[in-house]
């Protein structure tokens, strides 16, 4: 249902304008990972998720929060600012935004190799994604250092 024509006209117009203003990005180097069944997988979310005691995200935040692979969903809240998605689905089941239980099940079934030790959360709603260059590159380095083969990027 996030076909823009299904949204309120103003919101659809806003999201189209956002798209048009975004810089075109280039893939610098094409990487082919090892087989998924041997890969360590991490989640990178832009839902503004963090642990309850973490500093909340500020408006226009470019930083990130760490979510450990054994985090308890009872300790996870979000401070994303958008009013155009409601939090009821996440309240019902956090996996709908941050599918850590599903990753564990895929690991137990042998479909992925391992669940990463650390996962990452940013706050989205940033008109110019290139402003994440610095912290995004840093998170890439941290994921690689943690032995992550595949990052699953999930918006909200």
């Amino acid at each position: 249902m996030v076909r823009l024509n299904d949204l309120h006209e103003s919101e659809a117009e806003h999201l189209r304008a956002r798209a048009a203003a975004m810089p075109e990005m280039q893939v610098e180097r094409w990487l082919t990972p090892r087989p998924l069944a041997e890969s360590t997988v991490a989640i990178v979310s832009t839902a503004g998720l963090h642990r309850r005691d973490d500093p909340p995200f500020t408006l226009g935040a470019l930083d990130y929060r760490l979510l450990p692979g054994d985090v308890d969903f009872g300790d996870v809240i979000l401070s994303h600012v958008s009013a155009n998605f409601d939090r009821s689905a996440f309240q019902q089941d956090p996996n709908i935004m941050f599918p850590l239980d599903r990753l564990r099940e895929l690991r137990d079934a042998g479909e992925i190799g391992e669940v990463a030790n650390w996962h990452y959360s940013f706050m989205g709603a940033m008109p110019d994604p290139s402003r994440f260059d610095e912290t995004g590159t840093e998170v890439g380095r941290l994921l690689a250092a943690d032995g992550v083969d595949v990052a699953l990027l999930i918006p909200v």
Partner: protein
Amino acid sequence: MATTSISLVREQTERLRPPRALWVPFALGRPLGSSADPEFQKDVMRTAFGLLDTATEPTIADYPIEAPDEAGPGVWACPLNLAPAEATSLGDRLLGEVARLRPWAIETRRERGRTLFGASGAGPDDIDEVARAMAHIAESGDVYTSPPSEVAWRHPMPLLIRHLADDLRSVYHEGLAGQPGPGAPNHDALNDWIFGGTALGEVFLRVADHLSEADDGMARLVRGLLIPEGHYHGGRAFPETKEFGADSEKEDER
């Protein structure tokens, strides 16, 4: 390290051209499509992971299955009568509503073992404190001074208003989830309910008026973040994209 991604707004993904993206026909806030349907969620993930084997250049694939339906406007109705018998002020009416929803919200928390309430800085039991703070802002019209409270708020004004609203909506969502009744309401049904007759919606709209009257870029931006698109009489929620970016930079400097 390779990436594969979920895409909700296809137009933005087309612009950014990530290596591998799976566009999904789901609502904002529901990137895996369905709550409490693990097999559906895993099928979405497997399809996104499958692009690691098949894509040899930047690729956007379309997920072919619609999300299971939630109850939309006209299908879902709140089973509680929230109108208090005697209330003299908007703030009293809000506190009355919250009092009626609280037992159900607590039941939901007990069942789930968690709550999303607390983004403002309030503790899980500070429901009335948050309601009183929001009512104070609505009735005083002051969108710049943190409302008096024992709570150590975690955001400056006026941005705090956005997170107070989220905490109150969390209580209302939890209150609904604890009650017997038809399937979970979707985004539109929830907003129609909140802005179509609850004291909470009335409080939000009054605060939005104060934010609009403040004649300040940040206050106007918070107004856009407070009321979902289509539910405010005073025009579109968001300023132009350029203006949004400028406001974000200002916030960074604070």
